[in-house]
C-alpha cells in the first residue's frame, strides 16, 4: 500500500494523546502482524489492526479516524492478548472511537444506534429491558423489521421479559448525569 505522509502531522502529539486515552504506547509495535492474523473482523476492515497501529505511529490521525476498522472492532481482545510487545491494540481502537466521537466524525458502522438504545434502557430502568433495546435499535437504525421474526420464537420459549424491572433507577440516572457532566468537563 502506498502511503503519503503529510508533512504537517505532529507525530509526537498524536502518540501522546493516544498514550493518555488508550493507556498504551504504540511506539513499541514492530509490525509482526500477529494482531491482524488473529483478528476475527479483519476480513471486513479497510486497514488491518497492525496497519492502524502503524498509522498511529506515523501520526496519521485523519487516516485512522476515518477508517472503517475502528468501528468494526468488536473488542474481543485477541490482538492485545497475543501482542508480543504488550501493545493494547483493542485499547487503541476504543480510544480512537472516543477521539472520533469528540471530533464529530461520523461512525462508519451502525454501532451508535445499539449503544444509544442500550444506554437509554439502563438509564430508564437500572437494568436492561431487552425488547425495548431491540425496538430502540430498530427505530434509530431505520431497520424497522430487524429480528422481529425472533420475537414469537422467544415468546414460545419464554425467553423474553415483557415487563421492565425498575431497580435503583433514580440513583442510576443520577450516576449517568454526573458521569456525563464530568466527562464533558475533562
Amino acid at each position, binding site marked *: 500500500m502506498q502511503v503519503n505522509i503529510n508533512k504537517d502531522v505532529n507525530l509526537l502529539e498524536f502518540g501522546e494523546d493516544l498514550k493518555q486515552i488508550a493507556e498504551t504506547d504504540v511506539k513499541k509495535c514492530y509490525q509482526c502482524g500477529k494482531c491482524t492474523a488473529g483478528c*476475527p*473482523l479483519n*476480513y*471486513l476492515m479497510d486497514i488491518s489492526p497492525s496497519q492502524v497501529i502503524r498509522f498511529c505511529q506515523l501520526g496519521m490521525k485523519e487516516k485512522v479516524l476515518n477508517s472503517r476498522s475502528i468501528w468494526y472492532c*468488536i*473488542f*474481543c*481482545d*485477541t490482538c*492485545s*492478548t497475543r501482542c508480543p510487545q504488550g501493545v493494547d491494540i*483493542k485499547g487503541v481502537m*476504543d480510544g480512537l*472511537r*472516543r477521539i472520533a*466521537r469528540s471530533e464529530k466524525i461520523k461512525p462508519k*458502522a*451502525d*454501532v451508535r*444506534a*445499539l*449503544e444509544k438504545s*442500550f*444506554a437509554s434502557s*439502563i438509564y430508564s430502568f*437500572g*437494568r*436492561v*429491558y*431487552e425488547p425495548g*433495546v*431491540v425496538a430502540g*435499535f430498530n427505530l434509530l*437504525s431505520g431497520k424497522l423489521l*430487524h*429480528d422481529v421474526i*425472533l420475537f414469537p*420464537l*422467544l415468546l414460545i*420459549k*419464554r*425467553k*423474553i*421479559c415483557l415487563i421492565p*424491572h425498575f*431497580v*435503583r433507577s433514580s*440513583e*442510576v440516572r*443520577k*450516576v*449517568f448525569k*454526573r*458521569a*456525563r457532566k*464530568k*466527562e464533558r468537563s475533562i
Partner: protein
Amino acid sequence: MNYAYYPGCSLESTSPDFHLSTKALIEFLQMDIEEIPDWTCCGASAIHPDNKLLSLALPSLTLDSANKIKKDIMVQCPACYAHLREAQHALKLEDEMTEGIHEVLNKKVDPSLNIKHFSEILVHEYGMDKLEEKRVKSLEGLKVASYYGCVIVRPKKVMAYDDPENPQLMDQLITMTGATAIDWPFKTKCCGAGNSISRTEVVLDLTYEILRMAKQNGAEAISVLCPLCHINLDLRQKAIEKRYKTKFNLPIFYYTQLLGLSFGLDPKKLALDRLFVSPFPLLRNKGLL
C-alpha cells in the same frame, strides 16, 4: 463460602435456562448463595466506547450492593464478570479515575471483595472430588466441545480466569460428568458477541466457523458459559444453516445443564426444553434420558 449471586440482565431475560440451571445446581449442591437483591446493569459493552467513567461507575454500584450485605460476588455472565472486575481494578488503583468514580457515585466503594465466576467456585472451592461424589449418571459417550468465548479469558490481567488460548476449567467439569471434552482449536475464538443485534451477518459468519470447527473435530454438542455466545450459537443456528446452506444440528448446552444432568436433576428444572436446537434426540440416542 460467602457469595451473593449477580445474574445480570441477560440471565434474567433471554437466558432463563442459564439462570434456572444455575439455581438448580446451587440448591442441589446446598451452596449458601443468594441473589443480590438490588443489583443493577453492569453497562455491558454499550457504555465504554462513549464514556469510560460511566462504564466503571455502573458496575461499582453493584459492588456497593454486595458490600452492604457483606458478601463476595458470584457471577455467571462473562461480560458482567469482566465489567465488575474492571471496575474493581479501577477502584483499587486509587488514581484520578478512582476519585472520578467516587464522585459520580457520591460515595466511596470498597473494592476489596472477591469476584468469582461460578465455574471457578465449583472447581477451586467446592472441589472436583466432592462434585464427583454427587454424580449419579455418567454422560459417557457424549462428545462435547467446550467453548469459552472471549470475555471470560481476556484481558488476562483483569480476568485472571484461565489460559487465554487453551483454557481448561470447563473441560474439567465436562470430563467430571463422564462426557468427553474434545480437543479443538476454537475454544476462545470470538462469536461476534454484541454484534448480534447491530450486525447480525458478522455473527453468522463467525459462528459458522465455530460450529464447523466443532463438528469437524467430532463434537456432538457444545458447552458454553456465556449467554451471548449461547444466543449466537443456539438461537441463530437456523439462520447460520440457511446462510451457508448446511445442517449442523448441534445442541448448545450451558455447562450448568450438563452438570445437572450428571447429578440426575430433572431436565425441566434444568430448562433443557428452552433450548432452540433441541437436545432431546441426541440425549435419547445416547441413552441419557
